[in-house]
């Protein structure tokens, strides 16, 4: 059984159809790369999957539980997000919280974990991304790469079944993308289920096991990574 299944998802924004009839599934341990030209709706798709955006139609089946995306209620949305983690292009770290608090906040407030357990877990994930020494600073004093690693640690802390990444390195200076990609690579190797929107084609080729491309709001290809890159030849230069 798939961990995540999406059926016939459609979404219009500002009167324009952005996504139409998207169906896909994600197996446990999958690392799915979502590729496609700018403006095709990759961000919108991820946002619909995590209920930051309400789809106009579609069904989401997570861990065997079906949800009607159009009529989802806040409680139901919250329940779905308990199983997911989201990493934003713009990090979106809580500005008024320290690095540690950024991670413990959700654990304590939303998941009712005890403070001691939450701090322990936060330290664990911070060590994982190599930022334990920054636990007590505020996001404003971190570099972009460090911010994103905290963003990943925060998403990871609650042990989600699936992690969504929306262009996690696009807001970074080129020399800072490496540290973030390497954390993600480790996660993939550890068997974390991930759905990654990215323009880093070579990263997608090296790390993902499946590639989904979008075109004109639809799924254009959905295939394993090797097939995708073999068919495509070795044209590895970002956007088509």
């Amino acid at each position, binding site marked *: 059984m798939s961990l995540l299944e999406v059926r016939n998802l459609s979404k219009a924004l500002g009167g324009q159809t952005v996504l139409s009839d998207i169906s896909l599934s994600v197996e446990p341990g999958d690392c799915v790369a979502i590729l496609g030209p700018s403006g095709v709706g990759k961000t919108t798709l991820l946002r619909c999957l995590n209920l930051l955006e309400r789809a106009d139609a579609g069904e989401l089946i997570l861990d065997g539980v079906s949800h009607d995306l159009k009529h989802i209620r806040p409680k139901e*949305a919250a329940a779905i*997000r308990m199983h997911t983690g989201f990493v934003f292009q713009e990090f*979106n770290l809580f500005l*008024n919280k320290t690095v540690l608090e950024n991670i413990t906040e959700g654990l304590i407030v*939303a998941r009712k974990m005890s403070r001691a357990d939450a701090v322990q877990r936060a330290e664990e994930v911070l060590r994982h991304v190599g930022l334990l020494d920054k636990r007590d600073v505020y996001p404003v004093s971190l570099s972009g790469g460090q911010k994103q690693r905290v963003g990943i640690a925060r*998403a990871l802390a609650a042990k989600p079944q699936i992690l969504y990444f929306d262009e996690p390195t696009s807001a970074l200076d080129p020399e800072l993308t490496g540290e973030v990609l390497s954390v993600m690579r480790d996660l993939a190797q550890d068997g974390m289920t991930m759905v990654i929107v990215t323009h880093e084609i070579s990263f997608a080729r090296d790390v993902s096991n499946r590639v989904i491309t979008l075109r004109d709001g639809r799924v254009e290809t959905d295939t394993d990574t090797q097939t995708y890159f073999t068919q495509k030849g070795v044209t590895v230069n970002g956007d088509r």
Partner: protein
Amino acid sequence: MSERLWGILIDSFPKILIPGLTLTIPLTAISFALAMILALIVALIQFAGVRFLKDLCRFYIWIIRGTPLLVQLYIVFFGLPGIGIIIDPFPCAILVFAFNEGAYSAETIRAALEAVPRGQIEAGYCVGMNWFQIMRRIVIPQALRTAFPPLSNSLIAMVKDTSLAANITVAEMLMSTQRIVARTYEPLALYLEVGLIYLLFCTVLTKLQHVGEQRLNTYVAS
């Protein structure tokens, strides 16, 4: 300066300062505290876009901002008794000042709430928090930091606006001064004196504002 004038000034100082401490300051503090609670609620209702209540909030702000504070005081103190609602001067002043300031500060706080980046709220949802938790722990703290300087402004303005309460028989600093002027015929010296006491109060508040800003600025770039 004549010895007589000095005598009047020294003699009148406690007579002005004491109503300042017992009336002006409590009046300001209580009114402003109530105004902040009201303003936060009104701002949050609008920020959340609660149907009907939101319109009610806009109506309230429209009425309050569109009429003079003194007129509001007169309506409540002199007008309402006509329909059988009689409120003592001091609570009446608190009521009017709180509702008046509440409307202005609601707009300040609403603007500050809207200035919090949308991504902060979305990140809150993504770590599993609900709307109230996000407001309480992420958005409101950030908004209050933004709103703190303009709200301090309002507080300082209110200290001085409380002098309007003299018009509804609250014997605060200005009214006490007026009484002494009526006895001594030294308006210049005495009004300067009361002005200085207001200045003193506001200077203390300005200092407190700086301390407050420093503490709130811990997480912004240095």
